[in-house]
């Protein structure tokens, strides 16, 4: 059971990471900075619980706050550029953050042992869950409470005008400007929200994995962050979840029994999916299909 809970936790965390990119993707922005925000959130939360002995919730909260404000500040200069330029700019930002933690050292003595981030040696023994006797069920529910809340919020916002405005900017920036939408503000807002969500994911990740170092926050992670919403499709938040289950559940864990052939299949399957379903696994037609299915179910239920 333990194993499946662990897998579910991973899926939860990666879903949050994917959603942080999803929000930006709505406005047509492709950001590789999410891994950077993820890292900042992770280190902040971990430092607060390990060095300052905070409770995990405020720790993660402060982590989200810091990543949010960081994203806000980065947003203004970064979003001046578009398309590939933005991809590379955000990629560079992510690398910058990574290298910061690669040089970042803050060791303190606690009960005779030295704890805290130690540059390239990493930041180990973030054992909040274990030390406070959290069972896996509790960890899983903590993570998924957050996942559900975030998904619900985004899904709901998507029904409201704010969601429509985000998508409008994503569809056609110029037209959006000429109907009175402040494109810059919209984008920066999306960036900030994305940052907050990535920070949340990072905070949870740090305590789930118990050890942080710069290897965990490379371009690879950033690529995964955008891969989820792209693979899943931006027509619905559930797309991201589906994609995470596809990658983490199927490709990474599910195919483990294939041994060293697994990773070969990994890349190939991504290529195949993008060719078969360019708009994502969970595209609008799939959405319609499901809606109809549900409607049928209901009507049957009523009659």
């Amino acid at each position, binding site marked *: 059971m333990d194993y499946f809970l662990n897998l579910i936790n991973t899926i939860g965390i990666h879903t949050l990471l994917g959603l942080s990119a999803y929000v930006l*993707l709505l406005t047509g922005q*492709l950001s590789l900075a999410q891994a950077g925000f993820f890292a900042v959130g992770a280190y902040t939360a971990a430092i607060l619980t390990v060095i300052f002995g905070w409770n995990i919730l405020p720790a993660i909260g402060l982590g989200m706050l810091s990543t949010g404000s960081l994203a806000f500040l980065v947003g203004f*200069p970064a979003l*001046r*550029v578009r*398309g*590939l*330029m933005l*991809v*590379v*700019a955000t*990629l*560079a*930002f992510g*690398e*910058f953050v990574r*290298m910061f933690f*690669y*040089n970042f050292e803050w060791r303190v003595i606690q009960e005779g042992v030295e704890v805290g981030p130690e540059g390239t040696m990493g930041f180990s023994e973030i054992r909040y869950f274990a030390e406070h006797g959290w069972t896996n069920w509790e960890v899983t529910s903590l993570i998924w409470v957050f996942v559900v809340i975030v998904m619900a919020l985004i899904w709901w916002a998507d029904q409201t005008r704010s969601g429509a405005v985000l998508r409008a900017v994503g569809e056609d920036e*110029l037209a959006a400007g000429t109907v009175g939408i402040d494109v810059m503000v919209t984008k920066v807002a999306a960036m900030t929200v994305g940052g907050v969500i990535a920070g949340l994911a990072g905070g949870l990740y740090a305590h789930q994995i118990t050890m942080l170092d710069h290897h965990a926050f*490379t*371009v*690879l992670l950033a*690529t995964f962050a*955008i*891969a989820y919403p*792209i*693979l899943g499709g931006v027509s619905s938040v559930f797309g991201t979840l589906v994609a995470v289950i596809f990658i983490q559940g199927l490709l990474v864990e599910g195919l483990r029994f294939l041994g*060293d052939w697994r*990773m*070969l299949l*990994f*890349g*190939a*399957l*991504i*290529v195949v999916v*993008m*060719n078969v379903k*360019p*708009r994502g696994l969970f595209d609008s037609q799939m959405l319609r299909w499901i809606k109809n299915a549900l409607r049928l179910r209901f009507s049957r239920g009523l009659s």
Partner: protein
Amino acid sequence: MDDFWFEFVEITQSIGDGFLFGSTYALIGIGFTLIFGAMGKLNIAYAATAMAGAYSSLAIFIFFDASLIIIFIVSAASAAILGYLVYLSCFRFIPVHNHLAAMMASVGGLFFIDEVIVHTTRGSPLSFPSMFAEAYFEVGPYGIRGDLLFVFVIGLISTGALLYVLFRTRLGLATRAVAQQDVAARLCGMSIHSTNSTTFAVAGLLGGIAGAMTAAAVGILSPVMMLPLTIKGLIVTVIGGLGSIPGAIIAGLFVGSFENVVMYVRGIDERDMYVVALLFVFLIFRPNGLFGKTITRD
């Protein structure tokens, strides 16, 4: 005074070495920029195809003990084929306007190529032959590596050849036409797909040479080189200005020397930070890169 001269020599030497190494970045940058210029799309798998080309040429060397020139040719050829395959699998059948899907597919391509290489080589670093490895010229206080010079020259030749193809042949004309106005080009009866695939093949050729160059310059091939090379290539592309070949060349050489000087002055821990900072400076003060055209189309 003496140690001033000492420092001066050292720094200029660093610039020189970096400059020579920069030629590999330049070629990778050109590859990215070619494909972006032609399709407006990002082929993440590009550097991977380059390295794959180098690997296949290494196989030729190991099994048939071919000369270095052959190696470069083989590397270029196989990378060209790979480039075409990448086009088929990641771009050809994906809707033209769906840039995200195409990019994602090429990411998948990168993972796949990378893993194939690891699978066949067990990820072990492999020794790569280099010509004139023994030639090391001492010019006054300076030292120049013969094989690096050789690599650099090959870089120049291939770039020259590319420019000739682009600006003196019909193929090049078509490519640039498609790049500038694909609709108009289609109306003139050009096949977008054939042009694109040739672009990928040509880019692949360069990539293969770049891969072999890098391998020859370092002397080894290892899968851990792939990601850093991809990132550097992208940075060079952007600094040079999207779709600008001279831009990519100059940016490549520039980044090469810049990072090497920083390496000398500040050390490894800060080298890449400074490169990234350099990129930011460009994005803020020259958002379209060195030679990028300003995009005014609405």
